[in-house]
């Protein structure tokens, strides 16, 4: 691991002022915030991340879960994943979020990992994690060996000729279906970013993964008021039953009145280069009868633009079955 200066900023203002001196907030950032450390310390050991300054934000007052005036929920940046998943309001009103978090990592890691850290979780692509290999995300312009190499776990949606890395987060998939908003405080003030706009597609700049700029500190995430009468479910399919990243996952928030779907919010994990909100699946469902045939049609719509690589074509059918089954189970509860 490259050495660094360890700093514990007195308040958010000091943290932001120091981080604003960085050249970038993306891959290769020379200043990093650290909270849980489960991604960052791991990548620093691999020399994939080499910050010169590390800002420990664990003692800043960003660790609360509170109700919002609009009837929603405000989740602090350093709330631990385990505390968020087991919070009574989250379990009752945002069950899909609780289920998604508990489907990821291990109990130890969930006790460490934070809301903001999970939003910034990095891909598990083996080429990204190995500095002996080229990788456009880690070293722009060096190439993508995954496209001709080992790509069984990589993305079928949102990929480019420069990068096919999968976003590994479960939490973000549930937050996409819940239409969360990410609140950032930066050198120029505060701003609120819908989660759909927070992560970037790789395009020809895969080293840019989010809209964050130097000095931007995620302070909290807000969830809108829960949808009365909605059914929620997170279904995750993977190579083993626990402690594994998704091959395909689905977060569904669906409302059925009488026989028909009146509202649907759908997001997919394990298949996209970012947490994959599917307006195609939502559009295919609303106004239609809540039936197995229509759930399958929605799943077909969700994966219409999917493009397989040499080893991951199975993910397209897997994701369809995952979503159709998730919808079926959700409406039956």
């Amino acid at each position, binding site marked *: *691991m490259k*050495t*660094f*200066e*360890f700093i514990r900023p007195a308040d958010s203002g000091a943290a932001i002022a120091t981080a604003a001196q960085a050249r970038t907030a993306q891959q290769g950032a020379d200043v990093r915030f*650290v909270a*849980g*450390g*489960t991604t960052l*310390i*791991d990548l620093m*050991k691999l020399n994939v991340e080499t910050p010169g300054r*590390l800002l*420990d934000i*664990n003692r800043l007052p960003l660790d609360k879960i509170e109700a919002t005036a609009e009837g929603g929920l405000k989740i602090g940046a350093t709330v631990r994943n*385990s505390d968020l998943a*087991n919070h009574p309001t989250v379990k009752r009103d945002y069950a899909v979020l609780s289920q998604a978090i508990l489907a990821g*990592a*291990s*109990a*130890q*890691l969930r*006790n*460490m990992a934070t809301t903001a850290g999970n939003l910034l979780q990095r891909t598990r692509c083996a080429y990204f994690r190995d500095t002996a290999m080229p990788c456009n995300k880690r070293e722009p312009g060096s190439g993508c060996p995954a496209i001709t190499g080992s790509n069984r776990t990589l993305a079928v949606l949102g990929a480019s000729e420069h990068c096919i890395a999968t976003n590994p987060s479960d939490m973000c998939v549930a937050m996409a279906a819940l239409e969360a908003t990410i609140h950032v405080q930066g050198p120029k003030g505060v701003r609120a970013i819908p989660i759909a706009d927070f992560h970037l597609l790789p395009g020809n700049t895969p080293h840019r993964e989010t809209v964050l700029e130097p000095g931007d500190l995620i302070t909290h995430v807000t969830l809108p008021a829960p949808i009365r009468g909605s059914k929620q479910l997170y279904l995750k399919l993977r190579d083993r*039953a*626990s*402690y594994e990243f998704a091959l395909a996952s689905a977060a569904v928030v669906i409302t059925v009145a009488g026989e028909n779907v009146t509202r649907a919010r759908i997001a997919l994990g394990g298949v996209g280069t970012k947490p994959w909100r599917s307006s195609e699946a939502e559009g295919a469902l609303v106004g239609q009868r809540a039936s197995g045939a229509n759930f399958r049609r929605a799943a077909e719509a969700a994966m219409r633009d999917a493009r397989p690589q040499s080893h991951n074509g199975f993910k397209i059918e897997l994701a369809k079955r995952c979503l159709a089954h998730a919808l079926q189970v959700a409406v039956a509860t």
Partner: protein
Amino acid sequence: MPITLRINGKEHNLRIDPRATLLDCIRESVALTGTKKGCDHGQCGACTVHVNGRRVSSCLSLALMHDGQEITTIEGLGTPDTLHPMQAAFLAHDGYQCGYCTSGQIMSAVALLKEPCGPSDADVKELMSGNICRCGAYQKIVAAIQDVRKHV
């Protein structure tokens, strides 16, 4: 950098490299070697310790992030004469073979007792999935944990 770690109720004033993980600090600077280094990347659970009563992977945390916090390692759980009930249960159920993962398994299992966990073996397996046992003693580990949950 200077740091004060409270490990098993005892204060240690140390000077450490900022890169030192909590794991390396516990093993190398404080010489408590019951906590094991397995994968060193948060994937195996051998390094599990408690920080302020909660289980964490000490290999993915910098020691400096835990200045002043209460850390418990396997050495702080029981002694050979007065075993923690979980240690006794692992002995009684033969919940290990080579023993390398055992301290992490026991630290995880003790933390699990205070976490929301359903009653079934499957619930225990799910919450113990962060601790890998290459010898494959899983059945006996689950039996030991269930024994303690029923009787303590």
